[in-house]
């Protein structure tokens, strides 16, 4: 009897507790205050707040990023068109930069069609900003200033991707052959089936997240820059060392907090990279993605030299509050949204 009752009530009981937000009132207050401080930070620096569409015709071609996709049935052409929720507002913000917007920032939702985890929710809040006239070093300094303002951190550590691997794994990520990468994975107990079928970048990224990340940015944020050129789809290649791109990431207490770079402004090079991405997708059996022609036309018009960065607001809040899961800072994470 008990079992029968249990089953018939399951559907309703499953929702009984899930209507509630997963945040505390304290976390909601912290978010409101954080957003206020960020807006003040940019106002003081004369960076303009902008809004760009989250639903666009174009999307990212990157083989490891997938956008939510829908069909629009009311297009003026009469036939349905594909629209994509943006994985970041990057293309539209760069179109504004090409239209001489000057320095701009945006706080918006971003969507990624991927798994949920301690640090991941498919819908999240992103802060993205662009600084014409800055290089990635100047932008790193500004990100550090923002972290000092919002998290009251000490000035950050800065090292190259190469230095990080040298110090914590004892190999060079730019020149080590795959056999050395595989040997390092074994040495650090990274136990995965058919490791030799992983791409070189995936091997590096696994080594980085398992071995390097836990050892950096624990006391104060750590900026890692000069990533392998293959891991930076929209960044310029370094002038002195073409093996690396002018890209940086910020790590703090186990979180990958921000990703920034000197923006690639060559339309032809950008088109080549998009096509290259789609070729990789095809080779993997993934569907290819439409290239954002509006974005490429804007680049053809001319993008001022600039650096830009995207920072995860939810993760920033997690760090400020010292909580261990993103569910504690998002009112209704996707599984109960």
């Amino acid at each position, binding site marked *: 009897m008990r079992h029968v009752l249990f089953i018939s009530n399951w559907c309703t009981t499953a929702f009984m507790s899930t209507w509630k937000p997963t945040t505390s009132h304290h976390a909601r207050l912290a978010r409101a205050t954080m957003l206020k401080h960020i807006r003040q930070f940019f106002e003081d620096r004369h960076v303009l707040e902008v809004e760009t569409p989250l639903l666009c015709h174009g999307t990212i071609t990157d083989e490891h990023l997938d956008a939510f996709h829908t069909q629009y049935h009311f297009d003026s052409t009469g036939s349905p068109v594909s629209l994509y929720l943006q994985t970041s507002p990057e293309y539209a913000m760069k179109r504004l930069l090409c239209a001489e917007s000057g320095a701009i920032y945006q706080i918006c939702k971003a969507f990624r069609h991927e798994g949920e985890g301690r640090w991941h929710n498919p819908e999240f809040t992103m802060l993205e900003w662009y600084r014409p006239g800055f290089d990635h070093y100047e932008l790193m300094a500004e990100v550090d200033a923002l972290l000092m303002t919002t998290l009251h951190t000490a000035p950050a550590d800065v090292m190259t991707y190469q230095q990080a691997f040298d110090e914590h794994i004892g190999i060079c990520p730019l020149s080590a052959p795959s056999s050395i990468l595989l040997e390092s994975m074994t040495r650090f107990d990274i136990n995965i089936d058919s490791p030799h079928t992983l791409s070189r970048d995936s091997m590096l990224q696994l080594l980085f997240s398992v071995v390097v990340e836990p050892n950096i940015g624990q006391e104060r944020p750590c900026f890692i820059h000069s990533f392998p050129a293959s891991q930076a789809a929209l960044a310029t290649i370094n002038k002195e060392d073409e093996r690396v791109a002018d890209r940086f990431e910020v790590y703090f207490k186990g979180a*990958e907090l921000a990703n920034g770079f000197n923006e690639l402004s060559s339309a032809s090079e950008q088109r080549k990279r998009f096509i290259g991405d789609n070729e990789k997708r095809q080779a993997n059996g993934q569907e290819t993605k439409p290239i954002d022609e509006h974005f490429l036309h804007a680049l053809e018009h001319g993008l001022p030299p600039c650096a830009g960065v995207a920072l995860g607001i939810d993760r920033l809040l997690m760090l400020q509050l010292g909580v261990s899961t993103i569910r504690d800072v998002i009112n209704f994470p996707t599984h109960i949204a």
Partner: protein
Amino acid sequence: MANYSTNEFKGGLKIMLDGEPCNILENEYVKPGKGQAFNRVKIRKLISGKVLEKTFRSGESVEGADVMDTELAYLYTDGEFYHFMNNDTFEQIAADEKALGDNKKWLVENDVCIITLWNGSPITVTPPNFVELEITETDPGLKGDTAGTGGKPATLSTGAVVRVPLFVQTGEVIRVDTRSGEYVSRAQK
């Protein structure tokens, strides 16, 4: 048995790995902004008890393990097998020495243990957290000598040896924490 994708991974899920049923202890989704997604999983192998870390490519599927826990009362041993009974259905199951492992020293008649079954056969036996056993042998200990000596060894009726305070004597029944193997108190009469 059903297959599970890495998206379904969570603590407590039972999967097959290297031909052995395993329990997922922790699952962490790892996805660099510009990289491939992985699941880093901490796993306990249920037969060997070994704990290990394994990395899966996100989206990969693994075979589930038909593992279930059942509560059964310990009856007796015939020397080779240990016999347990479901107190509701009176159904009996025999576990071998391998499934018992070190835990056989905590088996007390009529105590309800958790028997983990894989494809219907017992693979582990978990005794209750606390058991009461009689001391069969321990040094008498000197009267009054109770200061900071760290106690003395005592052999219990099942053969288990635990450290007990000096004032506890042969013939007394004591309460032991089976997880740590430590003396808790004299048994409540």
